[in-house]
């Protein structure tokens, strides 16, 4: 423990109990960092506003509002009067600081309750001593201690409280949820006012004294090193202060080589870049081509999977004995993240110390990559977690952090590195594409007795690329007696990564589209077929694993979404209702989409009804609904327009012109409802995404009889 840490009372997470985390509070040392600092998250000054730390990165998921709300609830603070303070990246002090996997709420919800409750307990203890009254006679309300007619603000006791030993967080009393006043209430984001006034700083707004603006030019064919460049000509251009070749790190996903241009403004750097002439070394990625991969995938289909993943029962025999066999191929492309704030990072290197201002979803791996690449100690790197102008999983990777640090060191000046949109598209860590060659067998009653999936995606050396893999227990493993899943891996060098509901964002489309086909093949209603497929309420998979799910919870949201949409009602010609469900990231979601298809094939999504279950408590309903609506519309982007393709080793798309995003006039109304059965609180950034694309395909099928199995959808086939 460092001196810095031991000066503060802090909470740390250790062994897990009962699905949550056991929290310990360190004994309060002599001389707290600040009078009234009760733990790492709560500072109560003698006068003025209570400060609550927001320790998780904010990417628009509202976590700088919702986690402090949880603390404030148990602290019994006045939400309108607290100040929310973003923290630095400091995993030793704050635990997991990641915007990813919809995990912030499940990881921190119970902890943050105890953080707030522990601070309140310390205040009460100090107040009981100060007033000479029994602890049990004290109450609190909105940041005040109450004894009979007597009231005093917390601040009056905070200095004394901060000298007390912190209570055992495992034993500290938390509120009965029925007494919550803040949790579960509608609370706009704490930074909204700054955002609408242009006062909110994002990563891209960081400014340091003496800073230069950097552009970094890399080959579209990744891992091509610079052979030569017209550096002298670039250095002579207006506004340019420096230019140099940045050597590549040899390891996969290490720093990519390129040319850095440093200038007085972003625009000067960008203008000079357009005059840059670079000769590249040959890259091992030069073979990459979408046309070649399509051919390889077609060839792979004819052979058994190269990599068996999971098998139960006897698929071959069950398939042979099935009353009906249905096969189909589902396909989806690479897709990009496109966060609206372009990739950027600001860095200052002084000797072996590095300061970083980064819009990052996951700072600690960035710290490690910077330490490794620059050869500096981990503890010499400080990371300011700037508000992030959109993550979607892109900023779980910290490549830009390493680039900015290296360029700043080589320049000997603080540097703000700003990528162009073209850089963002062509250097993305893509959601991998894939193919699923599916076959299912139905018995005479229309039940699914066999399921076979030959999955084809990308990787290297017989291993899946990041976010390309499929788990052996992925749905519907465990639901079908005779089940087989195998894969073939196509070669890929370009970087891939997690994108909102990774894996699931594609698998949901595949399974819920195919199940719809099975329902029609069985002559069954698609809702009833799904209810029967889910069967009685039970846990599928290892109950201690994040991958296990409860079919009863799934059926409940399915039925809810169907009821919201008026499932089964009569619709006009060329209109349809499509349904889908999916479990991911501990969340249960189902949705119904109403769509109509014009004679010329134009698809209009009229409305979407979504039912979700993320446990017993929605912390901030307004933020929760925002997350669901955003996820649903994001999924429509993947249905309509998004595909990244390769030719000659590089990505062919460049900007929003090639990868259009949904706009105002294309956004349908979305009705969201949450079920809140008595299960632990889980996250919302992702699980509403996967069931959308299949529900749209299923609605289009109902409207036209045409089955769409390839993302993005080719609507031209829908012409009457």
């Amino acid at each position, binding site marked *: 423990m460092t001196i810095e840490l031991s000066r503060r009372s802090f909470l740390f997470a250790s062994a897990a109990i009962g699905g949550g985390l056991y929290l310990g509070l360190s004994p309060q040392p002599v001389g707290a960092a600040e009078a009234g600092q009760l733990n790492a998250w709560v500072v109560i000054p003698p006068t003025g506003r209570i400060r609550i730390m927001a320790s998780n990165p904010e990417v*628009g*998921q*509202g976590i700088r509002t919702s986690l402090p709300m949880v603390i404030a609830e148990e602290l019994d603070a006045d939400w309108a009067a607290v100040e929310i303070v973003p923290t630095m990246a400091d995993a030793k002090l704050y635990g997991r600081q990641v915007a990813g996997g919809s995990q912030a709420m499940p990881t921190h919800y119970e902890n943050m309750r105890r953080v707030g409750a522990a601070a309140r307990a310390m205040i009460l203890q100090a107040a009981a001593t100060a007033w000479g009254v029994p602890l049990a006679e004290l109450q609190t309300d909105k940041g005040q201690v109450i004894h009979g007619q007597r009231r005093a603000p917390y601040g009056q006791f905070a200095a004394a409280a901060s000298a007390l030993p912190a209570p055992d967080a495992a034993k500290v009393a938390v509120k009965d949820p029925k007494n919550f006043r803040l949790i579960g209430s*509608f*609370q*706009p*984001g704490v*930074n*909204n*006012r700054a*955002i*609408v*006034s*242009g*006062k*909110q700083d*994002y990563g*891209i*707004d960081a*400014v340091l004294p003496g800073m230069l*603006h950097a552009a970094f030019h890399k080959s579209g064919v990744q891992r091509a090193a610079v052979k030569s460049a017209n550096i002298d000509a670039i250095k002579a251009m*207006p*506004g340019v202060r420096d230019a140099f070749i940045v050597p590549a790190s040899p390891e996969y996903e290490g720093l990519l080589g390129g040319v850095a241009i440093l200038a007085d*403004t*972003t*625009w*000067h750097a*960008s203008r000079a870049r357009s005059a840059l002439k670079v000769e590249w070394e040959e890259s091992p990625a030069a073979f990459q081509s979408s046309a070649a991969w399509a051919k390889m995938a077609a060839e792979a289909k004819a052979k058994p999977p190269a990599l068996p993943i999971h098998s139960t029962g006897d698929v071959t025999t069950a398939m042979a004995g099935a009353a009906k066999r249905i096969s189909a191929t589902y396909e989806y492309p690479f897709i990009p993240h*496109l*966060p*609206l*704030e*372009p990739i950027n990072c600001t860095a200052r290197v002084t000797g072996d110390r590095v300061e970083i201002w980064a819009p990052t979803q996951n700072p600690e791996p960035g710290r490690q990559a910077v330490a490794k690449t620059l050869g500096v100690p981990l503890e010499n790197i400080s990371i300011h977690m700037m*508000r*992030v*102008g*959109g*993550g*979607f999983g892109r900023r779980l990777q910290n490549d830009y952090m390493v680039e900015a640090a290296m360029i700043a060191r080589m320049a000997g000046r603080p540097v703000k590195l*700003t990528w*162009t*949109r073209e850089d963002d598209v062509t250097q993305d860590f893509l959601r991998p594409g894939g193919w699923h060659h599916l076959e299912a067998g139905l018995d005479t009653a229309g039940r699914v007795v066999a399921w076979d999936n030959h999955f084809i995606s990308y990787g290297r050396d017989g291993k899946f690329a990041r976010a390309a893999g499929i788990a052996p227990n992925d749905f519907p493993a465990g639901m079908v007696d005779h089940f087989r899943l195998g894969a073939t891996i196509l070669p890929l060098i370009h970087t891939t990564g997690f994108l909102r509901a990774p894996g699931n964002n594609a698998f949901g489309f595949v399974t819920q589209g195919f199940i719809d086909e099975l329902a029609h093949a069985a002559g069954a209603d698609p809702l009833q077929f799904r209810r029967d497929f889910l069967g009685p309420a039970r846990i599928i998979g290892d109950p201690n694993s994040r991958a296990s799910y409860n079919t009863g919870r799934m059926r409940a949201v399915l039925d809810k979404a169907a009821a919201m949409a008026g499932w089964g009602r009569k619709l006009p010609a060329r209109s349809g209702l499509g349904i889908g469900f999916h479990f991911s990231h501990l969340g249960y979601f189902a949705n119904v989409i109403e769509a109509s298809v014009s004679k010329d094939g134009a698809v209009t999504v009229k409305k979407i009804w979504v039912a979700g279950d993320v446990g017993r408590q929605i912390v901030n309903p307004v*933020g929760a609904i*925002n*997350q669901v*609506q*955003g996820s*649903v*519309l*994001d999924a429509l982007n993947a249905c309509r327009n998004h595909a990244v393709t390769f030719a000659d080793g590089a990505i062919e798309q460049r*900007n*929003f*012109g090639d990868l259009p*995003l*949904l*706009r*105002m*006039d294309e*956004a349908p*109304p979305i009705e969201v409802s949450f079920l809140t059965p008595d299960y632990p609180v889980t996250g919302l950034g992702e699980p509403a995404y996967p069931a959308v694309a299949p529900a749209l395909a299923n609605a289009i099928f109902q409207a036209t009889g045409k089955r769409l199995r390839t993302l993005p959808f080719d609507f031209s086939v829908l012409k009457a």
Partner: protein
Amino acid sequence: MKLNINGKAVEVNADPDMPLLWALRDILGLTGTKFGCGAGFCGACTVQLDGEPVRGCQTPVSAVGTAKITTIEGLSASAWGRKLQDAWVALDVPQCGYCQAGQLLAAEALLRSTPKPTDADIDAAMSGNLCRCATYTRIRAAIKQAAAA
């Protein structure tokens, strides 16, 4: 050259070809105007020239002349602007919030010319501004709330 920004005369030493976006951000430190695509697709850089929304990334500073520039930092000088800001906060429109400066400047121009906009008016005025988080349903609701305020 001289620019009129948010009601103040400002001297700017910028290359005439420099897009207004970069003059605002990198020279004048008005970072509320955002860079999104640099190609006019997304609208994150929307500012107003004499009350009309334009793309800051596609407008050279030399083309501004004597036109009055309004950026997000000056939006609250407008009564519509203040109503929109209040509605944006109250309805919790932003997710990441990065596009919202551009959205608000487009919305303010809409309400000034069309104080009671229909859905079709909102579609027409706002479809140039991308929201990657897809807060569109809330933007629509907030414009209506501001119009009714």
